[in-house]
Structures are given as structure tokens and as C-alpha cells.
């Protein structure tokens, strides 16, 4: 199965802070999919809340998402929604 990708702009005014990162990691752990986040030349696996936090994704920054696995497509939809949401999950 070929990977699915998406590109998103961070919508939360405080950036990807604790609550957002928690939700992202929860999705990555819940779905049968490998979720990678790419930003500014670095890449992290989305199932690690600390990796995601340390990427320091501030409001307005662009992030690429690459998913592979059985549930890549539905996971992408959820991940994309959290990344672009203006409000805390």
C-alpha cells in the first residue's frame, strides 16, 4: 500500500502545545498507521508526544504528514483536522 500524504498549516494560536500533541499521539496510537510529521527538514514519528512537542510547531507553520498502513486514509483526515483546528481538541 502506497503512503498517503498531506500538508497543513498549524491553526492553533498557541501552536502544537501539550493538549494538541496529546491528541495527535493518541490518534497515531489508535489507528493502524505509521504517522510521520515533517517540518523544516526534520522528521518525527507522531506517536511520540515528546517528539511532536520538541518540533515546536508554532501557529502558522507548515507541516507535512506522511502515513502508511491499513488505516492511513482515515488517520490522515483526523490528524489534518487537529493540525489545522484553531481551538484546542
Amino acid at each position, binding site marked *: 500500500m502506497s503512503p498517503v500524504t498531506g500538508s497543513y498549516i498549524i491553526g492553533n*494560536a498557541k501552536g502544537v502545545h501539550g493538549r494538541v500533541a496529546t491528541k495527535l499521539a493518541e490518534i497515531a496510537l489508535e489507528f493502524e498507521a505509521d504517522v510521520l510529521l515533517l517540518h523544516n527538514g526534520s522528521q518525527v514519528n507522531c506517536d511520540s*508526544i*515528546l517528539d511532536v512537542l*520538541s518540533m*515546536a510547531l508554532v501557529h502558522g507553520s507548515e507541516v507535512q504528514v506522511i502515513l502508511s498502513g491499513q488505516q492511513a486514509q482515515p488517520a490522515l483526515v483526523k490528524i489534518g483536522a487537529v493540525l489545522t483546528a484553531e481551538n484546542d481538541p
Partner: protein
Amino acid sequence: MKSEKNKATPSLSGDATSNLLQGIGVSPGIVIGRVVVIKRHTCRAGRYHLPPDYIPKEVARFHQAVTQAENELVKLRENFADDLADALSIIDSHILMLKDRMIYDQTIRFIKSENVNAEWALAQSLNHIKNRFDKIADPYIKERYTDIKHVADRVFSILFGHEPSQLVKENEPVIVVANDFSPEDTMQLHTENLLGFLSEKGGVTSHTAIVARSLNIPAVIGLTHITGSIATGDTIILDGGLGQVIMKPDPEQVQVYKQKALQSGALADELAPYVHLASETFDGYSVRLSANIEMIEELQTVHRFGSEGIGLFRSEFDFFNQQRQPGEDALLVTYRQLLETMSPHPVTVRTLDVGGDKFLDHLPDHFSQLDPERNPALGLRSIRFSLHEVELFTMQLRALLKASVYGRLRILLPLVSSLPELHQAKAILRKVSSALEKEGVAYGTGIELGVMVEVPSAVILADVFSKEVDFLAIGTNDLIQYSLAIDRSNQHVAHMYDPFHPAVLRMIKQTVDAGHAQGISVSVCGEMAGDVLCAIVLLGLGVDELSMRPAVIPHIKRLLRHFHYEQLQQLGEDVLRCVDGEQTKNFVKAYLSNHYPYQCNCY
């Protein structure tokens, strides 16, 4: 002369108490009790080399510690209802961190590759994470390292074999004092005998404050070094509304505060219905009652007490909260949240209102150097400082304008004393807006600009200013001090500080009339607005909006709803005929005791 951190609003008679400490009140309520000081022993992990056959056992020991920590967190989570969503989501993130590969896998890898003990391996993992977080520029995300530290500390403490849980082993309810609380501490303490809590640390992004409020535990934060000056067993009084702590109170003080606590409890029940009622007179004449705040954290309180907007947001906190100057983005985060949360109600943000020397002291690497001022109250401060540091002012205005698309913004310029000052500020504002237009950045169309009337010259020129601005805000604290030439912190003259001084009341009237002649609104945002005796006078003088500490809004709303508009107008006229402050005060007192059935000496 001008007190910057004036969260403390003691009664207007203002007698100082020597054993009183002023912190930041983050969760209201008055409690009296003995304290328990929690001193965390920082566990220093030694490095021990282990023989190879011991390694699997060590890995198992670490795994067990993590599992126990997780169980503790899960158990703690179960104790709380789902309506504490904020607090629960913090625990969820801590559970995820605990099992995160940067902590869990990495520590096991260290144990195996270096043949070392779990404590040392965990400390190394934590160090790696710290190095990564140190490089993060965004203060809010960077601050999350504190959470990781709390999580690791829990595991450390299990590894070291410290007693888990129970931070307090007292039988009687106590006030808990610590350098800092983790959100879990705060939640765990709730299930024990807890009256209130007091911490040295805590600030804008402090979870502790949020959790305390959602649990309804009185709390004061920001009292640096308190754990050094207080011992387990001491009695204190803690007032989470005013942010005050009274150390070792005498019997008389205990009596006074017991009374206050009783009153405020009874009053809270009595006033609760007013929170959701419209703020208008008995016959339907509306007066806006809004809140004075200085931290985003206070927004919850603002809603709880039924405020219809922010009448004064003191914007200094973002500038003093950290060692370096905040960037435009950091300010934008604050302003956006402020406007979004309060929308559709208006939010009045006062631009930086500090003395220049004080500000630059705080930022040692700042480019301009100022000599210490001999008379700071009459020196380079407030709008004067902003016009001197145009870059700084520009940055704040840019952040404000960018935030304006998220709600109803009113920009308030402090200490304006002449027209050219206002013109300069307006010119900078115009520059900022045209720069944003060029950059293609959107900003709100309905932004209002106002000046603060707090020096006599502004009162006299109020008619001139009114033609140039959208609203006037009278800052009575400073207006009284500047016009009566009274420094309230000077004990020999403090008693002469008099809100009922006829000169003060006439100045307020003159300002209101000048504003109304141009069809603009006039608000009051000093302590007078939140004091029943003074507020009724202000209403009588025709003020359109009163802005005060959130907790007193229901009091003033009850007052407002009790009277007819004509009654208030008549009172205003009568008061203006009084020629000395004492006479005015007695007149108003007598009027209230004849016409208002509720007690009003509670301030």
C-alpha cells in the same frame, strides 16, 4: 506614587498590615489554617555500574516503576468527574509522556548499553530531552518541559523508594505551601484535607492555577521565597481573591477574617442570581459592568462573575513575566485568546503602562539606558515611555491590530496629558495599520481608540480629546493621587487620599459631560468602580461603564438594579453640592442606609 502591581485593593481607607504579603490570587476564597510546607528533596541520581547478569532485573525494576507511576495517574484520573476536562487532559498528556519512547525506550537502552542503574539512565534521558527543549524559541511550548520534569520526578521518587501518594498526613485540614505544584499534586491534594494552597512559582501558563480554580480551592501564587520564611505548623490567613497572605495573624486579625470568610460565603449565595441578570437600573437603563484583569488565566473568573467585557486589560504582565522581551507573536497569542474568549463583548487593552527605569532594569540587555529617575511618577512613564521606545510600542500595536480580527478591540492609551502626545500615538498607529495593509495582513475595522483620563490636564482637555477618540476611561486611582498630590504609599499623607474629595467628583463630572457632548462613552476603571459607596456616586455622575475586579461585579450589579435612573441622577446632583469629602461620604452613607437594604461595608 503609582503602584504597578495593584491587584491588591484593600479598602479605600487603606491601612497597611505589617505581616501581609501580596501575591497573585488565582482562585478566590478566604481560609485560615495551619500550613504544611512541602520541600521536595531533589533526588540526585548516582551512577552505579551493574554486572551484566543484573541488567534484566534493573530493566524490570524500571518497567515496574513506570507502570506504578502510570497506575497512580490513572487512579487519580478516575477520582475526577469529566467536567474537569482541562485538568484531565493534562493527566492524559502526562501518561503519554511517561510511556514515550524518548523516556521509556531511551532509558532502557541506556541501562543496557552503559550497564548502569535505572535512576542514572533516566536522568540521562531527561537531559537529552532538556537539550532539545532548550532550543525551542516559543515560550509556551518550551514551558512544557516542566510537565516532562514532573512526570520523570514521579518515576524517580518510586525508584528511590519514597512513599508515593499522600503529600499531607495531617488529620486536620491544612494550607499546603510549596515551591511549585505539579497539576497532579494539586488534584491529589484535593482528595486530602486541603484548605488552600500557596506556591512560589506559577504564571501565565501555569496549569496549577487552572486546576485550583476548577476544583474551587483558594490559591495564591507568585510569593517568591515563601517556603523559606514559613514553617510547617505556622498559622496563616490566605485570601485567594485578593492574592494576600497574612503570616502568623494575631487573634484580632483571625476574628476579622473569620467574619469576612463567613460574609463572603453567605454573600456568594446571595449574589449568585445576579450573575446572569442584565446590568441595568430598575427601570431598564443600561450601564456596562466590565472587568479589570492582567492575566489570561483570569478569564474564567471573568465569566463566572458575569462580566460584559474587559474594561481594563493591564498589558504589562507579558513584558515582566520573562527575562527577555516578548515578541510580537507571543503578544498576539495573548491578545487573540483574550479577544476570542470575550467576543462579542469589547476588550479594552491598555498599552504598556510602566515607568521606563523599572522596565529597563528588567531587561538588562536593552539598547537604551536611562538614568534612575528622581521622581518617577512625573517621569518617563506610560505613553511617554512608549513614544520614547517607538519600536516596542509599534510591536505592541502590531500584535493588537493583528488580534483585532478575533473580537472587539479597544486600545487605551495611558497617562495622556496633551494633544501632541495623542497625535504622535495616532500617527504611529496609522503607520502600523498601513504597514499591515501593505503586508496583506487583515485587521479589524471597528477598532476603537481611547485615552485614559488620569491627570488633571486630561480632565481640563477632555472636550478636546473627545473630538479625537472613541471613548474616555477615567483612571481614578491615579487621578486622585495626581490631583490631590497624595502618595498613597506615604503613611503620613495616605489618609488624605480621598475619592469623595469634591475636586475629584467635579473632575469626573466634567469628563463625563465632555465625552457625552461628543457622543462618546466614558468609563471608570479605578478602585472606585468596585466600591459600593463610590460606585453609586459614579452612576449618579452619568458614567457609562464601570470596570472592576471580577469578583465584585455581582455586588455592583445588585446596587445598580436596585435604583431608578432618576434617583441616581438626583443623587449625583446632590453630591456635587457638597464641599468637603467627609460631608459627601456621610451623605452617601446616609442615603444608602435609607434606600438600600443590603450591607455595603464589606470592602
